[in-house]
């Protein structure tokens, strides 16, 4: 069963990572956080966090399966994560604000 949990975590990490990468873009930041200010420094931070999170997702996939299989699982997980983030931005953009640290003015 831990394998299933690890893969679920990989999905979650990929979704979070893609969410951060999306928030690093001005247009999606506005959709999620409205008028909360967006700085280039924060965008950079979000991009790095996003990339790291995708890396964690790959690591989890590699821990579960043979590398050749893990690579495929990861690529497909990225596709699923991107679709989830895109549709969230379409229908429930505010939900992504969960991932935007400090958007409400607090540090």
């Amino acid at each position: 069963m831990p394998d299933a949990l690890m893969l679920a975590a990989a999905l979650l990490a990929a979704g979070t990572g893609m969410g951060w990468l999306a928030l690093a873009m001005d247009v999606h930041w506005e959709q999620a956080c409205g008028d909360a200010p967006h700085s280039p420094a924060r965008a950079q931070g979000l991009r790095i966090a996003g990339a790291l999170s995708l890396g964690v997702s790959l690591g989890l996939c590699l821990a579960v399966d043979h590398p050749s299989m893990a690579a495929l699982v990861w690529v497909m997980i990225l596709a699923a994560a991107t679709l989830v983030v895109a549709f969230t931005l379409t229908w429930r953009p505010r939900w992504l604000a969960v991932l935007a640290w400090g958007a409400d003015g607090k540090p």
Partner: protein
Amino acid sequence: MFQNFRLSMAWLHTWFGLALGFVLMVVFFFGALSVFDREIDRWAIPSSRVEPQPMPSFDRVLRPVFEAMQPNRKSVDAMRSEVNGPMPERFDTPRRWGAYTTHRDPVLGLFAGFEVPNAKDPETAIWASRTIDPRTGASLPEDRLKIGSQFFYPLHYSLTFTWKDLGYWIVGLAALVMLAALVSGVVMHRKIFRELFTFRPGKSRQRSLLDLHNLTGVVALPFHFFFAFTGLVIFASIYFPVTHTQLEPLHELHEKLDSEETGLPHERAGIAAPIASVDAMVAEAQRRWAARGMAGEVGFLAVQFPKDANGYVSVYRAGTDRIALTGEGIHFKASTGELLREEPPSSAVDSLNEFLTGLHLQHFRHWLLRWLYVLGGLAGCACIATGFLFFVEKRKKQHARAGSQGSRIVDALGVTTVTGMMIAALGILIANRLLPDVLPAGWPERGDLERYAFWGTWVLAMAHAFWRSAPVAQGQVNPAWHEQCRGIVVLAVTAVLLNWLTTGDHLVKTLAEPYWPVAGVDLFLLASAGIAALAARKIRRKAKETAHARPGKPTEAAHA
């Protein structure tokens, strides 16, 4: 011819995509369903709704079945023209016996090939096949069509057009065009990363269709690319049959050299010999796999030249734990059980080929990856379908003004291949549940009737799509879209209800046991019904808006 590279790519993408998109839609949709072909088989053949079984004992279960197997009347009749003189009553010289199973198969498929006396080509073999319950060896009725693995799956790679292998060629051409469409699509798409997460249904119909087209195309781009490519790799020997055309003499020589190198006999000795215990050989093969650190079950078991002194037994491992499609084959002399050959690890080229083939054919045990493949396949369908819709949407006002019927025809074909195809798939499932267990004498075979139901429903859906298509010529929406979506809702729910009524396996029961193959198919049908209902409502509302909107309203999407 074109002002710039991007425009020429756009032309290629639009017209090649349109011409072969209809085929690609079929390939993607039934490919996605084929990921769960064995599960669809369980739904379609209620008597086989049991847990997957390992390869049974050869000595006790398989051997008596193989010895009783004979080609059926149909294949004997089909072979007549390839033989000088009359066909024999019985075929006594088996050339090869084989049994094949996967970790998802509760039933076991067997095949036997026989030498054909007086055949014009001495290599000719006649084949018999049978499906048995591996627990008892009892044969399953031959007239049951395995809808998943014997219909949807062949539809995916050959459209079931067997005449001169035409289907393979059409699908191969479509795969090639798919690769070209992906490359040209990437060239045309100016904001591939900036718009990666973008879908704006609130904007104009053209814009939102293009968003969805880009989104579903780009997110699964590696999937689309690799599946089109590996599909071509798998059938490379059909597309480039050099070993049986230009290089035929070389091929023969190669087979002989190969058999010298491997020590596996190339032909019969002509001397009768008994078969030793194959179970002991299987146990030895499993011991050898375990010694190599890859203990596993048997996936494929074959006896070449049974009951001949040159006979040998081949044992292949089921590749459930890796992508690459390898068998780690181990071969034994059939009469003594002596080890003839243990296949060495693959060379780099072979490994690559095995990886690419395995990636597509998925023998592995990984449920998440299976579902992700379904997602990739359906994303491909959405991409192609939105491509059609965009083509129509972009042109229909202009066509309406010019009095052209072009977009009307494309739109009707779009309805046929998108919703019509799903209706046909539901048609075969419903026919499967409605046909009586025993057909009256004189009727065609049950499997044939199910196939007719599929094609018949599809033709009806096509007729409906064209019959209702007139509004498109006035720049409006074809009502067939939402009507067929509603049809999908009704048919999908009907299929689930019929499964309950005819087998007693309703969802509460299959989920409680749990028996996932049947529960999964039922849930998938209900989910499709739900999505189709939403789509029907949405399309209807949009169609009404368009009908009331002023004609000639400018649109946003300018490119593509």
